[in-house]
């Protein structure tokens, strides 16, 4: 078969695919024979003269699963290379805006759609990644290694490729991550063949000759190849640099960076399986005129965030919205019956009732309601609050004329008890928290006492005094004068001594203070207290 220069690789599909497969086989043979990592054929683009783009390639390097490069049979090499190519094409197909023209066969396309042996980017080694990203590169005349090779028609042997200047070798950064240390380019068939390896191999013309012979082509007269060492600052380099400056090297640099970045981001966008909702990503760079945002800059290290330097973490408004505002509503919740069922726990009734009792005890005592707590916490809270209240009452009574001795309940067995209880009384009105169980008490002399406790909207009162006629009615009248409505009353009279437990609701906004309530009650009860 004659491989003439005129038959660009963009010729009729059938021929080109045959040729491509032949070329790839040749590349495979060549690269395997010298045991290098990869071979790429950069072909001339038919549309733009002098522009080089991906033609064919063969990957013979490390894979994640297979470490040794040399074990693979030549057929595996070809298969792997085509897998990588397919993967690249699929990645690119995910982004329909790119316009790099390629010679992708129909076969590849079908494979792409059927996703038969699909690789995912996670499966790739660094070298393979380098290989795939290389597929995206396009070189204008005299740009980078392949461009320059084509322009000058000479072989270029680049050692320490990973340290090369981006102007020479735009993929040097990639090469560094892939550990590609040597890259060789030579012109071939109107394009450029590039080979690379992860070892540092110094220039070897015989190797080159060998490769060329593998490609089954009568080699061109062997031009003197230039051996570039990246760190060398010699005249040739300067000449090359000068030469390159003509092309506006700074733009080239940016372009290459940009190219790399856009390629990588394009490919990685595929990797994130973003096939749907593909809109043009907005230009969120704040260098846009009219944007309110400024570009982010790394703050000074002085201001850099250390845990101790953080402003006091408050989240004030957010916390209030989540915690306090709902509780503003729940103030109204106290109107509800104590045995209200909230939550959907439909467990056995005794548990529910016990829970509800404890909940209502808490609610009468504690301003903020947190209904969802464990039982032990509730018990502890109740006890703690009782202790606090007793202390407060004692302190208050130091100024008053009320005796506070150890309070004991009279035993029910001792004497006749006249006990009246209102309908919705519950045991929680006992200020000391006894939940209705009788205690063994010894008889003691009658003590007079007056306790008032003011909650958010409730008042809990306990009166112990000598009984007189209509004393309870007078107390209730006093309460209503103080804008309170009693809703729970329990009284018992024993031996002329009255014990009265009351719960009343504040009627309106006018809230009587504890002192005022006590004063009024004392007045009603008389000087017995």
């Amino acid at each position, binding site marked *: 078969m004659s491989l003439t220069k005129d038959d660009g690789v963009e010729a009729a599909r059938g021929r080109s695919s045959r040729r491509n497969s032949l070329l790839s086989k040749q590349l495979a043979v060549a690269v395997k024979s010298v045991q290098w990592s990869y071979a790429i054929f950069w072909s001339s683009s038919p549309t733009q003269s002098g522009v080089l783009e991906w033609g064919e390639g063969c990957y013979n390097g490390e894979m994640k699963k297979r470490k040794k490069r040399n074990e693979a049979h030549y057929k595996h090499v070809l298969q792997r290379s085509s897998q990588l190519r397919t993967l690249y094409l699929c990645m690119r197909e995910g982004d329909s805006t790119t316009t790099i023209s390629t010679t992708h066969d129909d076969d590849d396309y079908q494979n792409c759609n059927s996703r038969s042996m699909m690789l995912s980017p996670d499966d790739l080694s660094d070298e393979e990644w380098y290989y795939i990203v290389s597929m995206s590169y396009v070189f204008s005349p005299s740009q980078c290694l392949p461009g320059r090779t084509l322009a000058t028609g000479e072989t270029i042997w680049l050692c320490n490729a990973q340290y090369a200047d981006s102007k020479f070798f735009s993929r040097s950064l990639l090469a560094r991550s892939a550990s590609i240390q040597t890259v060789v380019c030579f012109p071939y068939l109107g394009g450029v063949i590039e080979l690379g390896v992860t070892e540092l191999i110094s220039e070897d013309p015989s190797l080159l000759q060998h490769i060329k012979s593998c490609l089954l082509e009568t080699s061109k007269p062997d031009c003197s190849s230039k051996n570039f060492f990246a760190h060398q600052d010699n005249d040739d380099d300067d000449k090359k640099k000068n030469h390159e400056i003509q092309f506006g090297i700074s733009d080239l640099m940016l372009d290459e960076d940009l190219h790399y970045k856009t390629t990588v981001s394009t490919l*990685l966008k595929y*990797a*994130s399986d*973003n096939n749907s*909702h593909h*809109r043009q*990503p*907005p230009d*969120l*760079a*704040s260098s846009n005129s*009219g*944007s*309110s*945002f*400024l*570009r*982010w800059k*790394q703050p000074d290290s002085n*201001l850099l*965030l250390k845990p101790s330097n*953080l*402003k006091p*973490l*408050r*989240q*004030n*408004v*957010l*916390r*209030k*919205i*989540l915690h*306090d*505002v*709902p*509780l*503003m*509503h*729940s103030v*109204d*919740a106290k109107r*509800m019956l104590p045995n*209200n*069922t*909230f*939550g*959907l726990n439909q467990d056995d009734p005794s548990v529910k009732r016990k829970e509800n009792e404890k909940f209502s005890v808490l609610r009468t005592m504690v301003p903020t309601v947190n*209904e*969802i707590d464990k039982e032990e916490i509730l018990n502890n809270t109740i006890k703690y609050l009782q202790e606090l209240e007793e202390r407060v009452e004692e302190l208050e009574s130091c100024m008053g004329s009320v005796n506070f001795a150890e309070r004991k309940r009279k035993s029910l067995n001792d004497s006749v008890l006249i006990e009246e209880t209102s309908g919705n009384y519950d045991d929680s009105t006992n200020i000391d928290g006894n939940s209705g169980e009788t205690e063994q008490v010894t008889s003691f002399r009658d003590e007079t006492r007056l306790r008032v406790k003011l909650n958010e909207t409730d008042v809990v009162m306990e009166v112990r005094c000598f009984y007189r006629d209509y004393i309870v009615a007078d107390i209730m009248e006093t309460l209503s004068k103080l804008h309170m409505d009693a809703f729970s009353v329990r009284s018992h009279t024993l031996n002329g001594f009255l014990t009265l437990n009351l719960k009343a609701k504040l009627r309106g906004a006018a809230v009587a203070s504890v002192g005022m309530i006590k004063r009024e009650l004392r007045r009603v009860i008389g000087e017995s207290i």
Partner: protein
Amino acid sequence: MDNSAPDSLPRSETAVTYESPYPLYAMSFSSSSSTTHRIAVGSFLEDYNNRIDILSFDPDSMSVKPLPSLSFDHPYPPTKLMFSPPSLRRDLLASSGDFLRLWEITDSPSSEPLSVLNNSKTSEFCAPLTSFDWNDVEPKRLGTCSIDTTCTIWDVERSVVETQLIAHDKEVHDIAWGEARVFASVSADGSVRIFDLRDKEHSTIIYESPQPDTPLLRLAWNKQDLRYMATILMDSNKVVILDIRSPTMPVAELERHQGSVNAIGWAPQSCKHICSGGDDAQALIWELPTVAGPNGIDPMSVYSAGSEINQLQWSSSLPDWIGIAFANKMQLLRV
């Protein structure tokens, strides 16, 4: 409209400011189906009388004006406001507080805010709502979350409860819809759970806060890429990005705020961008890379507001604008 520009706002000529007589918290943009762009803002006054104001925004002239005839009262501060999604034909505004209320905002400026649909469980006491979310795909479905640890799914067309689930062990702070039947919620128990209405018995915990029981305060589900969610913790300057395919391990923790984060919002048009606002008075736009650098992810751009940013909304009806609320002001920032 007040274009006040303190010195700390370098590019305030592109920000549109509305100054309100009272502090603002809740905010919502009207959906794209309405002809004029409307913004509802809810006041944050710690007593019974609060107000919801409707503003109209004109991006071309960059002006925002209140529509006083459309303002109405709300008992206690609304914990969240949200306009109905475009898939619902009518233009409704929902507010959450003690109950879920639906308001009808009509176009003619002279009308009163119509039909207050008071949705509450009639037999039982309805625990106050901390947040809610309107399902975009299935617009008659609205999910609310409450301090009684439950999430309730409403059918707003028929005004009935579709279902109620006990979502967490403690108060639920936020809820977000993913698909038509899938929602996620965050709670004071520190977990993010995903629920599927087809299987109400089970939920998936996809993240738990590293310090046990650190409440998670807000949740945002990326509508462009349903695999990703963002959440913020109490007292934390981090925005935690989660991938629902890999539970418990966050994909990224964005830690560049100098104060705790108060609000987050995903970009409506791009799956990789998210904006966050915090107590450091900064709004940061982040672009999430596929591979994070060693020092963490840096934000793309920053905006410094006058004071702590309490609310942030990035609406799909106005993808070029981000609304933030701080102190008494509501600002619209051009992206």
